[in-house]
C-alpha cells in the first residue's frame, strides 16, 4: 500500500515537473506579455523534434541539445514578438482588444509552425532511447530519464526564480507584469521586456520539449495537448503568478497520476473537470489576485 502510494506521488511529481516548466513559460507570455499563446505547444514540439533529430542524426546528447534549442527558441520568440505582437499591441488600442487579437494571431502561428514541421518531419511518431535504465526509489521503479526530467524542471524553476528576484532585467519583468505604465516611467523599455518575456517563454517550451522527448514518443501534432495543459495550470496557479504556475504544475501532475492509477484514459478529462470547477469556484486560481 505504502509503495503504491509512493509510486503515485513520485510519478505525479515527475509529470508535474514537466507541467510546471511548460506552464511557467506560458505564464510569462500570458501574465506579462498578455499573449494567450495557443502556439506554445508548437515550441514544445519544435524542441522535442529538434532534440530527436540531433540525437538520431548526429548522436548529440539530448541534454547538450538544450544549449542549442534554448537560445534558438529564445531568439525566435523574441523576433516573433518584435515583428508580430508588438505591431498588434500598437494597433489594438486597448489591452482587452490586444488579448483577443494576439490569441487569434497565435492560433495562426500554431498552424504555420505545425504545417512547416509536418512538411519537414512528416506525421510519424518518433522516439529514441536515452538514460532509459530503471532506478529504484524506495521500492518504486522509475526510468532514469524521468528523474533527470524532474531534476531539470526543478533546476530551471529555481534558476528562473533567482533570475526574476535578483537581476535587474528580472525585476523589470516583474514590475512590468504588475503595472506596465509605471514600469515605463521607471525607465523600463516595455516593448523590449515584453519581447524578452515572450522569448523566455518560447525557450522554456523548447527545453520542456527536449525533456519530453527523452521519456515520451514525439510527433509534429503533439503540441496542442500541452498547450491546453499549460493553460489549465496557469489558471490553476493564478494568472501571472510564476510561483503559482510552478506549484500548480506539480499539483496537476499529482492529480493526473492519481487519476491514471484508477483509470488511465481519464487523466485529460479530469484536467478539464478541474478547469471548469476552478473557473466556477475560484477563477483567480491558487495564488492569483482579483
Amino acid at each position, binding site marked *: 500500500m505504502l509503495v503504491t502510494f509512493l509510486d503515485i506521488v513520485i510519478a505525479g511529481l515527475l509529470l508535474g515537473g514537466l507541467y510546471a516548466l511548460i506552464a511557467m513559460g506560458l505564464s510569462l507570455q500570458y501574465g506579462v506579455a498578455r499573449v494567450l499563446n495557443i502556439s506554445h505547444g508548437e515550441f514544445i514540439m519544435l524542441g522535442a523534434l529538434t532534440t530527436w533529430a540531433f540525437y538520431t542524426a548526429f548522436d548529440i546528447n539530448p541534454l547538450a541539445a538544450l544549449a542549442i534549442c534554448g537560445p534558438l527558441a529564445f531568439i525566435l520568440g523574441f523576433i516573433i514578438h518584435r515583428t508580430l505582437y508588438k505591431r498588434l499591441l500598437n494597433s489594438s488600442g486597448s489591452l482587452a482588444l490586444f488579448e483577443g487579437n494576439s490569441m487569434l494571431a497565435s492560433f495562426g502561428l500554431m498552424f504555420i509552425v505545425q504545417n512547416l514541421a509536418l512538411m519537414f518531419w512528416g506525421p510519424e511518431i518518433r522516439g529514441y532511447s536515452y538514460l532509459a535504465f530503471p532506478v529504484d526509489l524506495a521500492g518504486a521503479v522509475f526510468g532514469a530519464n524521468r528523474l533527470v526530467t524532474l531534476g531539470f524542471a526543478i533546476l530551471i524553476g529555481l534558476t528562473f526564480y533567482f533570475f526574476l528576484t535578483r537581476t535587474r532585467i528580472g525585476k523589470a519583468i516583474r514590475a512590468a507584469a504588475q503595472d506596465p*505604465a*509605471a514600469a*515605463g*516611467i521607471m*525607465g523600463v523599455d516595455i516593448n523590449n521586456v515584453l519581447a524578452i518575456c515572450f522569448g523566455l517563454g518560447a525557450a522554456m517550451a523548447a527545453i520542456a520539449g527536449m525533456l519530453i522527448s527523452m521519456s515520451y514518443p514525439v510527433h509534429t501534432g503533439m503540441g496542442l495537448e500541452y498547450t491546453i495543459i499549460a493553460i489549465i495550470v496557469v489558471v490553476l496557479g493564478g494568472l501571472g503568478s510564476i510561483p503559482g504556475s510552478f506549484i500548480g504544475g506539480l499539483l496537476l501532475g499529482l492529480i493526473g497520476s492519481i487519476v491514471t492509477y484508477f483509470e488511465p484514459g481519464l487523466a485529460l478529462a479530469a484536467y478539464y473537470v478541474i478547469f471548469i470547477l476552478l473557473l466556477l469556484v475560484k477563477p483567480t486560481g491558487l495564488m492569483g489576485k482579483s
Partner: protein
Amino acid sequence: MLEIRAVNACYGKIQALWDVCLEVREAEIIALVGSNGAGKTTLLHIISGMLHPVSGSVTFLGRQIDNLPPHSIVELGISHVPEGGRVFPDMTARENLEMGAYPSRAWKHRVKTIEQVYQIFPRLKEREKQLARTLSGGEHQMLAIGRALMSKPKLCLFDEPSYGLAPLLVAEIFRTIQSLRDQGITVLLIEQNVRHTLEIADRAYVLENGRVCMEGDCAELLQSDHVKKAYLGL
C-alpha cells in the same frame, strides 16, 4: 529647463488640452492648479511620454522630447510620481526603490541612493522588506516619492502626492518637496490642496477645461479674486 509650446492632446476623440504653454526654470517649484478633469494629469503624462501630443512641442534642456517613449525621458532626468503613487504592490519596498534606479546611469549608485532616500524617509527603512501592498497610505506615498528620487532626476513631476493623507503627513510631504528644491531638483507639482501649494511654490499655472487661464507668481495668484473664489473657497 522645460518648455511646453502650444500643446494639444487628445484621448481618442476627446480633446483634453488646448494650446497649452508652460515654462519651468531650473530650481523652481511650479504648481499646476485646477479642478478635476481640467487636464493637469494629462499634461504630466505628455511631459513623461505616456501620452504624445497631437500638436505642439515639449523641450527639455534644449532637446525636443514629445516623441520619445517614457523610458528615454527618464534617462534624460525627468521622473514622475504618478497619481495614486502606482508603486509595485508585489515587490518589497526596497525593490520598488531599486526599480526607481532602473536607468543605467542610476543603477550603479542604487545602494548609496537608497541610503539617501532612507535618510529622507526613515520609515521606509523599517519597512524595506515588506511588500508594498502591505504599506499604509502615507508609507505608500513616501515610497512613490522615494522611488522617483532614485533615478537622480533634474526635474520631478508630482501628481497629487498628498491625496488622501492625514494633515500631519501632508505637511511632511510638502516639507520634503521644498527640501528637494534646496538640493537642486526642480519640481512641477499638481495638488488639490491649493492654498498650501501656492504657499510653497514660486509660480503657478491655473488650468481650466484644458486651457491655461491664469499664470503668475504665487503671491499674486493668492490675491486674485478668481483664485480666491474658485479654489480657496473665500
